[in-house]
């Protein structure tokens, strides 16, 4: 079965749900679009070039969002949420 990866809209939806704000507020909380895109691309790269399984891809996403810090506030909640979604 092919893996579906989170895109930007998913990331904003997930952030909005995680911190219980609107999607517009989630977009306002974004500090750096490039850093978010980079974090979201990490699982695909890990899968394609490092043969990472789905668990490692989830961990890669978690680490990417943590290291890149693309949002202005409330990092922990969306972080844990992203990693959970990646294995859904």
């Amino acid at each position: 079965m092919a893996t579906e990866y989170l895109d930007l809209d998913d990331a904003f939806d997930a952030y909005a749900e995680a911190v219980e704000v609107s999607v517009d507020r989630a977009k306002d909380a974004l500090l750096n679009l490039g850093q978010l895109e980079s974090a979201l691309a990490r699982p695909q790269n890990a899968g394609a070039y490092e043969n990472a399984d789905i668990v490692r891809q989830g961990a890669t996403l978690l680490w990417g969002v943590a290291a890149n810090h693309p949002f202005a506030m409330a990092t922990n909640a969306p972080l844990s949420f992203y990693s959970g979604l990646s294995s859904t």
Partner: protein
Amino acid sequence: MARPPGSVSCGSGARRSAIAELCSRWIAHRWGQAQLTHVRARFAFASHIHVTGLGVDPDLVSPSCLTDVTTVYTVAAGDASMAVIHVRKVGNSSVVTLPPEVLAQANLRDGDLVQPRVDRAGRIVLEAVTVTPREARRAIIRNAARRDRAVLRRLAEYDRK
């Protein structure tokens, strides 16, 4: 099945074996020895072998002509698929055409999405992809958030401190 212009009828027996061996050697020469066994096996199913770029009558193909051959492919016989497909340029992209038999076997139709990758053995793998609609993705996110609401609130509270 109509015989393409310039194609060589394989016939059967020694003639088929000779032509298949000739083309297989050429492919191995161009693409590497690793392809030889695979190509030999595929040629065994071909009704015709189409040779272009020779500049001579295909029936006169000999080993000395091999370096002049630019394209060799087979035409399917029965349910056998094409052995060799040319990669061609369309605009700025390189395109490979999938034969209808392959599409039918893979249960693919026009408009379907596939994800290409190259495995460790160097084979190109096309994997069918199902894209979940946006609303369904939102529902998955909502349900996951609802499931973990207590934990998310504690984490959000921690972040605000």
